[in-house]
């Protein structure tokens, strides 16, 4: 970032030079501007004067090229850096908050169903989820201004989480005493979770993902100004050498050749470097980010569906849909599973489109487990509706052949798929950022070298007039 200003200042020195040796004809003090124009006009009438002007323009163009490149690429590199180091991790953290909350809710309901003494592993999972969500919230808060959308969602989450955890503890306490009241507390906690916390987490995730997309776009935007400045500088350099050749019959002016070489190297570096960065970032986006987005949503929908499935058994028809015809939780479960199916289909398509066979495997496994889950769920519902509660419970929270087992398969497969996509993303985005590495500094150095070389070359020619 320190380069552009210093380089930017340099051109001003160059135009100062030519007027000095020629000395002004100095008409009787018109305005300063008119005087400068008059001086230039006078200079343009002689060859040394013209050469001085050409030299100044060449140096200026090469410096401008370097400065614009350094400036534009610094911006692109900063955006690419943000993608890798800041916005993607923040987006992943927001997804982590979202997921931890949904998982905590599913775990709380599972533990509740198991009876007054919930399985240790299930409770530990719940505690871990709450801790993880709290930890990520602190991290997210540290990286976010309180006044922004994300800041407000973080506040909502920070306020709601302890309240949710309190309701769950009341549910556990009542369940431990065998009071049906525990189920009512659990449903209230779930209402807080699905009505306030999860929507806030989703908005946070969306905001962070939006920020990531923005960084992505600005990193990938073509550096048109730099490219234009480069082409212009080269064109003028070529013209100057052609003019020189015509007037002196000398093929090479070493200074100008060196300047041309420097500008050409910089232009190629710029074009190739950014194109590579662009394609790496595009790959990070298409292979990693988009898949991750779909997979994150799929994972959260699977968690919500699991919580709804458990609550169907907890509530046992105590809560109906708005029209009073169907069980609310069963209806929510069905909707969640439908969304999950669609998201998995999208993930499969993304993996196919990008030829990502490794990434496709866990997604296919997840799809298979979802089918199994739905079949088992139908069986469990049938058992439950027939009044065989004990068997239905076993079919839902049991260790083997239960919907819980299928759900775990889905969750594990999605976790693997996400880890794979995250690796893909990080690798490609790092490559993209790396492709821009050194370019701003290189642009500054090459431009200064080129400008110096151009002035040296022109001065050499000028010296022949003395």
């Amino acid at each position, binding site marked *: 970032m320190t380069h552009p200003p210093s380089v930017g200042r340099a051109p001003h020195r160059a135009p100062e030079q030519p007027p000095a040796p020629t000395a002004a004809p100095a008409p009787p003090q018109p305005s300063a501007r008119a005087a400068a124009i008059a001086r230039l006009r006078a200079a343009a009438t002689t060859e040394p004067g013209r050469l001085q002007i050409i030299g100044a323009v060449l140096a200026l163009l090469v410096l401008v090229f370097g400065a614009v490149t350094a400036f534009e690429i610094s911006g692109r590199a900063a955006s690419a850096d943000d993608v890798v180091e800041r916005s993607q991790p923040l987006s992943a953290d927001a997804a982590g908050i979202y997921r931890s909350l949904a998982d905590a809710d599913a775990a709380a309901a599972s533990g509740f169903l198991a009876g007054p003494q919930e399985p240790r592993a299930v409770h530990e999972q719940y505690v871990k989820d709450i801790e993880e969500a709290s930890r990520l919230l602190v991290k997210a808060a540290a990286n976010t201004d309180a006044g922004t959308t994300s800041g407000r969602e973080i506040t909502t989450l920070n306020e709601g989480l302890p309240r949710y955890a309190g309701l769950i503890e009341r549910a556990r306490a009542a369940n431990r005493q065998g009071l*049906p009241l525990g189920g009512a507390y659990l449903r209230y906690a779930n209402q807080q979770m699905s009505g306030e916390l999860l929507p806030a987490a989703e908005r946070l995730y969306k905001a962070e993902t939006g920020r990531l997309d923005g960084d992505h776009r600005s990193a990938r935007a073509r550096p048109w100004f730099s490219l234009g400045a480069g082409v212009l500088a080269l064109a003028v350099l070529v013209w100057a050498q052609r003019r020189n050749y015509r007037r002196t019959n000398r093929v090479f002016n070493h200074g100008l050749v060196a300047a041309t070489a420097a500008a050409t190297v910089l232009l190629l570096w710029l074009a190739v470097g950014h194109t590579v960065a662009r394609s790496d970032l595009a790959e990070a986006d298409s292979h990693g980010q988009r898949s991750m987005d779909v997979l994150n949503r799929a994972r959260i929908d699977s968690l919500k569906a699991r919580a709804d499935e458990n609550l169907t058994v907890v509530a*046992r*028809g105590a809560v*109906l849909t708005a029209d*009073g015809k169907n069980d609310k939780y069963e209806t929510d479960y069905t909707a969640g599973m439908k969304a999950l199916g669609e998201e998995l289909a999208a993930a499969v398509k993304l993996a196919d489109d990008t030829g990502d066979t490794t990434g496709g495997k866990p997604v296919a496994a997840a799809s298979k487990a979802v089918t199994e889950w739905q079949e088992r769920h139908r069986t469990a519902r049938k058992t439950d*509706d027939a*009044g065989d*509660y*004990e068997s239905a419970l076993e079919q839902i929270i049991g260790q083997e052949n239960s919907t819980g087992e299928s759900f775990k398969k889905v969750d594990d497969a999605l976790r693997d798929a996400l880890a794979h996509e995250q690796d893909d993303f990080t690798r490609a985005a790092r490559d993209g950022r790396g492709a821009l590495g050194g370019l701003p500094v290189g642009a500054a150095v090459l431009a200064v070298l080129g400008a110096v070389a151009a002035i040296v070359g022109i001065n050499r020619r000028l010296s022949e007039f003395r």
Partner: protein
Amino acid sequence: MTAKDPGTGRGRLRRLRGWGGVTAMAAACAVTASLTLLPLSHQGDDVFGPQVTGPGAAHALQARADTCTDPEASVRPGEVDGDAVRKIKERGKLIAGVDQNSFQWGFRNPESGDLEGFDIDLVRAIAKDILGDGGKVIFRAIPTNQRIAALENDKVDVVVRTMTINCARLQQVSFSTAYFQAGQQVLAAKEDHSITGFNSTLAGKRVCTAEGSTAYEALEKESFGSAFKDKHDGTAADEDRLTVPNQLDCLVRLQLGEVDAVVTDNALAAGQAAQDPAVELKGDPFTTEYYGVATKKGANDLVARVNKVLVDYRAGGADSLWMKSYREWLEDGLPGIGAPPAPKYRD
């Protein structure tokens, strides 16, 4: 059933129809009128005793079933096996649809995992009578909205699940005689002396009811200046703060200090009070409704058999099975009941 029928899901509105006759009957026959008339409880025991013919005045006022002015009137007790009873005997098991989340009525004992409660005791008594063994029962915990469907689809023989007898339901199922009288009542914190019942002391209070319940309808008629509606009731944005999906949710709101009082059916309120020693019923019930055992429509042999079981169940005064079960499950939360409701018959 247009009401959402949450909790134990009784659509309480309909059953209010045709109460003129009942009220007249009750007035004419004060002995049978109220379970809360403590001084009369001993006298009541005699009336509700084994001689189940009941007061003659009641019959005189009874309307015919098809016009449904008196839904509590059921078929006479009998022991003649028809298809329904024979099926149970052949199977060797009675299949009963019950609740498992209604504290003290039908709920799962967390230690044993077994179903227990006032309704469950009655189911066992029916099984004992028909099959000779109170253990020969398959309990099916059915959701509120599946009660009628479970009977129609032969998934269960009887539904004993705090189910209120009313005319609309009589179109779909048959009911035994009433085995419990309930009514709407106010529940609030014991410490809260500012609320004394369903009256003007509710002014300015936040009152919780189950969506679409009789209690909610009662408040709509006369709210006494209380707040009992959510801003977005009936829409997807429903806050579920004052009107909630299930009556038990009201106890959650009451404990969290989000509401000041609950209006619900006292039988269920008793279940709430039993789960929280800091709350109690305030004032008297302000409606009357009866629970009955439901069977598939037209299974008159089974209804008659259940009515016979109920005759025996009520018999014995303070030592009757009914009173024993009452004392075990309900008395703590719903004190002051001296006898079961009197049976009424169609002829």
